[in-house]
């Protein structure tokens, strides 16, 4: 595990939890004045904090280093979690998050490569597994040691292109490719199991030639152990199914189908920030289920 180029190296899992708390605060602050995909961002906040502080050999000082690891955010609608993590780690000024949805910057509902740390744009689901295959292929061609992490959603797994890319990744024995599924158990409007059931999920990936582990996406200790074992099997792409809770950390929107895209009032955001810190549950009156 290399953290040498990181601008911030938390010593303990408690530090990671503190960092994740601040990331979630940023996500909630972006959930107003137009809003964002709050639930899906909160579900993968812990994953991003872990990946950027403990796993990825990457940093703002090595953006063009061909030896760096890659993180590709395929479920692009959770980009507030990524930007908040990058801001907390010093890749971009925290102040810049206030440009959310403003025309003077590129911080909008899906990732833009103008932001340092965004390797590729996304938003259309099912694209970055294929892009990751291309990057991983080139790394293999150059005998590189870098890893390519592709974070997907679980609803995103409905897209056939994900599975097409996995077939090719398996055929080319891309064991430098890691698919991390933010398994928050919801697609846009419904629980995945009520619409297009994904379970049993691990055997599906195994059948496509991947080596699979399933962990809690909110447990830093489990992440530490599991990510340190990559690749799980020589010659096979790795898949980590990270079980998470959509809206994690904010009980009044946790695991609720109707809190996908959220555009809260300023007062509600303040109440939710309190909730995040363990204070009383917020009373929400904002319209729910604003489908974008």
């Amino acid at each position: 595990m290399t953290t040498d180029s990181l601008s911030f190296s938390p010593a303990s899992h408690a530090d990671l939890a503190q960092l994740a708390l601040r990331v979630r605060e940023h996500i909630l602050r972006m959930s107003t004045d137009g809003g964002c995909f709050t639930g899906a961002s909160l579900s993968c906040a812990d994953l991003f904090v872990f990946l950027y502080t403990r796993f990825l050999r990457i940093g703002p000082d090595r953006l063009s280093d061909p030896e760096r690891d890659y993180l590709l955010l395929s479920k692009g609608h959770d980009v507030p979690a990524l930007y908040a993590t990058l801001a907390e780690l010093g890749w971009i000024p925290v102040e810049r998050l206030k440009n959310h949805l403003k025309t003077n910057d590129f911080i909008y509902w899906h990732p833009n490569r103008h932001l340092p740390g965004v390797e590729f744009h996304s938003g259309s689901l099912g694209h970055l597994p294929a892009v990751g295959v291309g990057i991983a292929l080139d790394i293999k061609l150059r005998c590189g040691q870098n890893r390519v992490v592709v974070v997907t959603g679980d609803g995103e797994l409905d897209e056939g292109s994900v599975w097409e890319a996995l077939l090719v990744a398996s055929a080319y024995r891309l064991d430098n490719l890691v698919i991390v599924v933010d398994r928050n158990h919801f697609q846009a409007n419904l629980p995945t199991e009520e619409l297009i059931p994904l379970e049993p999920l691990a055997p599906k990936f195994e059948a496509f030639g991947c080596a699979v582990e399933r962990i809690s996406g909110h447990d830093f200790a489990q992440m530490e152990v599991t990510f340190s074992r990559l690749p799980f099997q020589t010659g096979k792409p790795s898949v980590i199914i990270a079980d998470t809770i959509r809206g994690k950390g904010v009980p009044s929107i946790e695991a609720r189908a109707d809190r996908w895209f959220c555009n809260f009032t300023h007062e509600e955001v303040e109440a939710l920030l309190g909730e995040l810190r363990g204070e009383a549950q917020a009373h929400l009156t904002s319209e729910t289920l604003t489908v974008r």
Partner: protein
Amino acid sequence: MNYQELIRQIALNDERIIVMTAENRAVLRELPPVLGERFIDVGIAEQTMIGAAAGLALRGRIPICHALAPFLIYRAYEFVRTDVGIAHLPVKLSSWIAGFLSEANGPTHQAIEDVALMRAIPGMTVFCPADEADMLAMLPAIWASPDPAYVRLIVRKTDYTHAPFEIGKAEVIREGSDITLLVYGLLFEEARQTVPLLEQEGLSVGLINMRSLKPVDEEAIVRAAKTSKRLVTIEDHLLTGGLYSIVAEVLLKHGLSAEVQPLALEERWFHPALLSDVLAHEGFTAEQLARRITLPGWV
């Protein structure tokens, strides 16, 4: 020299070149042992090929992607637009059997909207060589450009010797004061044979090989419109979005009004058959083109 010879020469001198295919090896058969791991066949997975090509291009490679035109363009369109187009990556698309070249395959295999769709993508360049020699003259510049590119491959040989190629320039074969034929791809040869037939009717006929459709040679179109009484666009493509549309856009942009006769496929797919029969059935042989151009009402 042929297509794979050209790739071999360029790829051996430029390690950025990666040859990809979605299991379409018609013009690539000898390349796997030559290119080794730089030959990547993803199987019948066009979306993954294009997405992976974007990933390779992000790492500094120049992927040349092969598939049958309809699957390269239509199956993978959103990947071309979103991964290659938005990022403006130097991914080179080589489409096989576009237009009438799909012969007897049927409508599933007919890429007759490819020019319209490809040129709609911001930054994408579009080229349709007239024959194998034209294509071989064009590809080095197209692949050396930093822009994404779409090329209708053609391996048909003709006895015509083409002028050197320049991106954005048409090949003006000849000028004429009555009619100028604007054509691209395999129909260039038919149009070339049409010229003497029209001359027998006493017409002064120009001929332009519109090998670079995007960027297009506006100057050549404007000049033809000003010096010729009528322009005739000839294409194995739908009327919508192809050369006829390009000419209309250029004329409007320059405030010009001209008589333009489109010879294209109008709101339909063509009848599948062997190429010579397709040409005859659809009215694109030299004799038929001459007849359609000299129909009463058009003279």
